[in-house]
């Protein structure tokens, strides 16, 4: 009968107490491991240094809000910026030498809770001519990673077509060839949804990216502006920006729409509602003829890749000094967010879980101390059979260590299960998952620390056992 068998015997002898102590260790370690995973994966998820583009341009306001909204498709958009800024970035002599590529996005609508992002085919590396863009103009959402089509094709820039993320079919039931109508904003439970009239047809499905893009529906920018409320809203915003009379601007837009509607070969969309002015017609080929002037088009953000690293700061400086927009490096924003919020929060959580671990160690101490008090005769028998004091000390300390190890291993598993649950939640909410199954070196170091603390906790009862008088306990009955 070796030492290990003896320890297991001792533990089985007081199984309830042993299991409860193991449970207390499990809780402490599970919590700490979950925090360690959160900390590590949070840094990986939010603290990454490269997004494939260096600058996010959006409405002035919170850089974090802009980044969360644009990159992770959560939170509200901080507001609109004029579409003309996008054109400036591409064509203005001031910006053009600094910009390698720019991709505009506009958000505000949803379908069954999933976000619609209006953009140009450039996001999927299709040029204005419908052909793939050259290598140096490829848009990458992460360094070296572009969106790939799993099925179908990229939407036409001027049609009511959509490309869906890889999780959309699972999340909403939409599939290739289906038609859908967008919902205004994100209605709360119980709220009557405001469903827009236009109908988009799904023409493509993206390959999985394991990013929030997997849960997004992409449509073309012009089709986004065809939504009546969007046109009216944009006109109003433009009027306010320019200090114009809103009614006059609206009347002008209506006259232009009337003119467009009378163009031979075009039709007003079916089911049109006269109460809401439409800003487009659709030709026989399904092409949108948008009457809303580009001057009033708004964007939620522009994703910009600079021509060279040295131009990034200049570009951001120029944009930030203008009236229209802010420009930020999303990697820097997320690093700051992680450092100031997530990092400190996880540090506090880590401290709490360490305290829980210490409490668990104390429970080991109390549990074994009580058992030693109740096992004086048993220890005396061990001694009478030839066990040295040191052997008894080792036996008790190893029992404590074994409880720490079992609780620690179970806690490690529990922590990773919490990580798995967190990963599922993140995937459902922002479309990003974490590597919950990977055991980090610091977790193993922590586990080693837990076993060490447990052994040290066992030292107190072990010393009591060490001092057990043999003869007295053998005689006493």
């Amino acid at each position, binding site marked *: 009968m070796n030492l290990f068998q003896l320890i297991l015997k001792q533990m089985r002898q007081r199984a309830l107490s042993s299991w409860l102590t193991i449970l207390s260790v499990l809780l402490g370690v599970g919590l700490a491991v979950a925090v360690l995973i959160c900390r590590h994966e949070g840094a990986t998820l939010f603290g990454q240094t490269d997004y494939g583009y260096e600058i996010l341009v959006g409405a002035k306001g919170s850089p974090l809000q802009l980044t969360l909204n644009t990159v992770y498709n959560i939170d509200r958009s901080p507001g609109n910026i004029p579409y003309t800024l996008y054109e400036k970035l591409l064509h203005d002599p001031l910006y053009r030498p600094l910009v390698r590529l720019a991709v505009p996005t506009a958000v505000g609508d949803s379908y069954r809770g999933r976000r619609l992002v209006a953009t140009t085919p450039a996001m999927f590396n299709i040029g204005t001519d419908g052909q793939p863009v050259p290598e140096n103009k490829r848009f990458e959402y992460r360094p070296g990673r572009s969106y790939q089509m799993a099925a179908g094709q990229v939407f036409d820039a001027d049609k009511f077509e959509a490309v869906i993320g890889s999780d959309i079919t699972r999340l909403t039931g939409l599939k290739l060839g289906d038609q859908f109508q967008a919902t205004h904003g994100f209605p709360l439970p119980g709220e009557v949804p405001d469903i827009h009239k236009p109908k988009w047809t799904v023409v493509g499905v993206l390959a999985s990216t394991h990013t929030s893009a997997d849960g997004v529906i992409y449509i073309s920018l012009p089709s986004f502006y065809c939504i009546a409320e969007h046109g009216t809203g944009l006109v109003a915003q433009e009027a306010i920006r320019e200090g114009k009379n809103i009614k006059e601007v609206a009347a002008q837009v209506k006259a232009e729409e009337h003119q467009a509607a009378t163009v031979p070969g075009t039709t007003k969309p079916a089911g049109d509602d006269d109460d809401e002015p439409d800003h487009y017609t659709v030709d026989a080929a399904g092409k949108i003829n948008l009457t809303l002037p580009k001057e009033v088009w708004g964007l939620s953000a522009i994703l910009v890749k600079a021509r060279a690293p040295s131009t990034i700061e200049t570009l951001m400086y120029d944009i930030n000094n203008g009236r229209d927009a802010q420009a930020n490096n999303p990697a820097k924003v997320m690093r700051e967010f992680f450092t100031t919020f997530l990092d400190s929060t996880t540090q506090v959580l880590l401290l709490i879980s360490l305290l829980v671990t210490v409490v668990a160690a104390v429970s080991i101490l109390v549990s074994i101390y009580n058992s030693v008090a109740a096992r004086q005769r048993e220890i005396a*028998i061990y001694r009478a059979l030839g066990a*040295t004091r040191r052997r008894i000390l080792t036996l008790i300390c190893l029992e404590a260590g074994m409880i720490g190890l079992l609780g620690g291993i179970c806690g490690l598993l529990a922590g990773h299960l919490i990580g798995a649950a967190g990963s599922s939640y993140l995937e459902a909410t922002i479309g990003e998952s974490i590597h919950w199954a990977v055991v980090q070196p610091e977790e193993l170091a922590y586990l080693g620390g837990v076993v060490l603390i447990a052994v040290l906790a066992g030292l107190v009862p072990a010393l009591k056992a060490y001092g057990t008088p043999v*003869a007295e306990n053998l005689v006493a009955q």
Partner: protein
Amino acid sequence: MSLQVQNLKRQFVAPDGSSVPVIDIPTLALGDNQQVALTGTSGLGKTTLLHLLAGILTPDSGSIVYELGGRSTDIARLPEPQRDVFRGRHIGYVFQTHHLLPAFTALENVLLGMSFGGRHDRAWATHLLERVGLGERLGFKPAKLSVGQQQRVAVARALANRPAVVLADEPTGALDSANAQAVLALIRDLCTEVRATLLLVTHDKNLAAQLPQSLDLAQVNRISRAPSAAAPVGGTVR
């Protein structure tokens, strides 16, 4: 194996703080393969003497020398860890009450006796239990065994390390007459089998008479004699 005790003294501290001498034995000797009954009334210090001989207690003075394989070891002078190891390897101890561990099976109790002596011989442990008539109950825990069977397991455990000497402290004290005879016979047979010297403490003179030799503690321990009759005494084996 031989055991030589010289000027062995041990006293305890009474609750009132005074010293109470319990053992004062000028000389006592046991030879190889002897089977000796140590008799005496209650309170004479029989158990204390066995504890001293086993190294469970240390004497205040005197020596306890074991001669094993031509090597002398005075366990009274051994540091405690070595004394524990010596006990585990060379001394088998049968307690008055069996002192089996309740969570361990009969076989595990015997194996436990071996493990602290640095051995592991499952076959020998099984053989011992078969010899004491418990071959069918190897996996039984003490609670499932009768008192007589429990004491037989304790006998097997004491013999597990093939000790040079077996110290048995009233091993039949809790047994009825038939069981007492059977257990005594087992102890004697097994001691003969492993060539161990046996020192068996009993207050039962009939039981003591069954052993080839006996020793009255009252004759060897000065403390049991009246203070006025403090003449030198010596251990004599009948």
